[in-house]
């Protein structure tokens, strides 16, 4: 089944075109990693899939249901309520975690299942405890976010997103604001999810991680997808000069660390 399809997506911020005729599809259980220089539109693309950003034109389909359908900035053919129902199938993890600071780790995870899905509190707690165990944070369930490390925060954020039982997970640079020694613990959780065949779209600058976790790599530059290939092809046998320069630059920086 096609979990997600993007057709002819366009978007600009002022005169700057951030999405320029973007087309691709994601199959069930696939892990897609999106790489490319800063400002190439990777995060914006991700944010269009759950409605945090609006496309100007194009069609987004999620599990064969149309999520967005727009022509040249005209009104979206899909109404807000339909969008909301479809967006429930996606979970998202942010670069800056965005945990709720006034709620404990456990409360962060049970909040939306209770208020949005109407899950009974006792059931939500059981579910949250299972998820926290999965991300290795059972012992932190009563801690407030300010008392845990960045890596732990991000793992809570992943558990929180999984709490809504999504079919597709979106990761927007999940390790970019972490200290280098905390990156691994978050990547491990994502790799575990990949093994369980969770469908995922991941924006990252960590090339080794991308190579390990991805079924396909999408390379974006100036709002365009210039490659959509297997990781092996991108990293070991790239064709496009832009990709070659980018990989060289990144690998130099990352080996200098």
């Amino acid at each position: 089944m096609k979990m997600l399809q993007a057709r002819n997506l366009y978007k600009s911020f002022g005169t700057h075109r951030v999405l320029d005729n973007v087309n691709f599809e994601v199959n069930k259980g696939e892990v897609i990693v999106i790489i490319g220089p800063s400002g190439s539109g990777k995060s914006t693309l991700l944010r269009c899939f759950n409605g945090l950003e609006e496309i100007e034109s194009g069609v987004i389909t999620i599990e064969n249901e149309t999520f967005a359908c727009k022509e040249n900035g005209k009104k979206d053919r899909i109404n807000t309520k339909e969008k909301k129902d479809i967006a429930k199938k996606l979970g998202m993890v942010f670069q800056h975690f965005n945990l709720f600071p006034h709620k404990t780790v456990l409360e962060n995870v049970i909040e939306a299942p209770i208020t949005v899905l109407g899950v009974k509190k006792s059931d939500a707690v059981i579910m949250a405890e299972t998820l926290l165990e999965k991300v290795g944070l059972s012992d932190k369930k009563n801690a407030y976010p300010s008392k845990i490390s960045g890596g732990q925060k991000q793992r809570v954020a992943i558990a929180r997103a999984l709490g809504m039982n999504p079919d597709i997970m979106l990761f927007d640079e999940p390790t970019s604001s972490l200290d280098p020694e905390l990156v691994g613990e978050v990547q491990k959780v994502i790799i575990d999810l990949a093994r369980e065949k969770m469908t995922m779209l991941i924006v990252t600058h960590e090339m080794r991680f991308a190579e390990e976790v991805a079924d396909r790599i999408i390379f974006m530059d100036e709002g365009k997808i210039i490659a959509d290939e297997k990781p092996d092809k991108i990293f070991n046998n790239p064709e496009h000069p832009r990709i070659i320069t980018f990989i060289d630059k990144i690998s130099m920086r990352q080996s200098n660390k």
Partner: protein
Amino acid sequence: MENYIQYVLDSSVFILKGSVLTLQLYFVTILFSIPLGIILALMKISKYRFLRIAIGFYTWVFRGTPLLLQLFFTYYGLAIFGINLPAFTAAALTFIINYSAYLTEIYRAGIESVDKGQYEASKALNMNYYQTMKRIILPQVVRRTIPPTCNEAITLVKDTALVVVIGMGDLLRSAKELFARDFAITPFAIAAVVYLLMTTVIVYFFRKLEIKYSIYE
């Protein structure tokens, strides 16, 4: 000496009787203006231009004119149009409207200070506007606005003394009556102590609140 102690006690009782009205007005104002301030703050940042302008006009007028003038207006001014409000009603109404204007701006700033990532996380979890505000944003706003709200709560204690001008017998007026009768400074000293006691209790209460809410920081 014994006579003086007796005099202080008698005066205190008289002044404390006057402070009943002060306290009534105080609690009525607090009770209504805090929730009203939150609701109006949400309206002031709503997507409807008309609401934003209307609330902006309201806070402009009520923060920009003296409370004393507003009190005159509700009590004496409205009487010209045949609206004769009892003194307490007029005072309570004026104080609520005036204090709500200040609190509206405090809470508006508080809401705008919450990181936009909190809204994005809520949206990504499919929470709607009401759920996001009630469960995520406002609890954080309440915590952040405790100090400025405490300031307002202290100012309000002292502002209640203004009701003298519409003929109401509050704490300060009782003290002034004793002064006029005895030509002694003691009643004023007693009044000062009573005000200080009230503000001390308020500061203590807000301090407790701040500690309670600071566990997550």
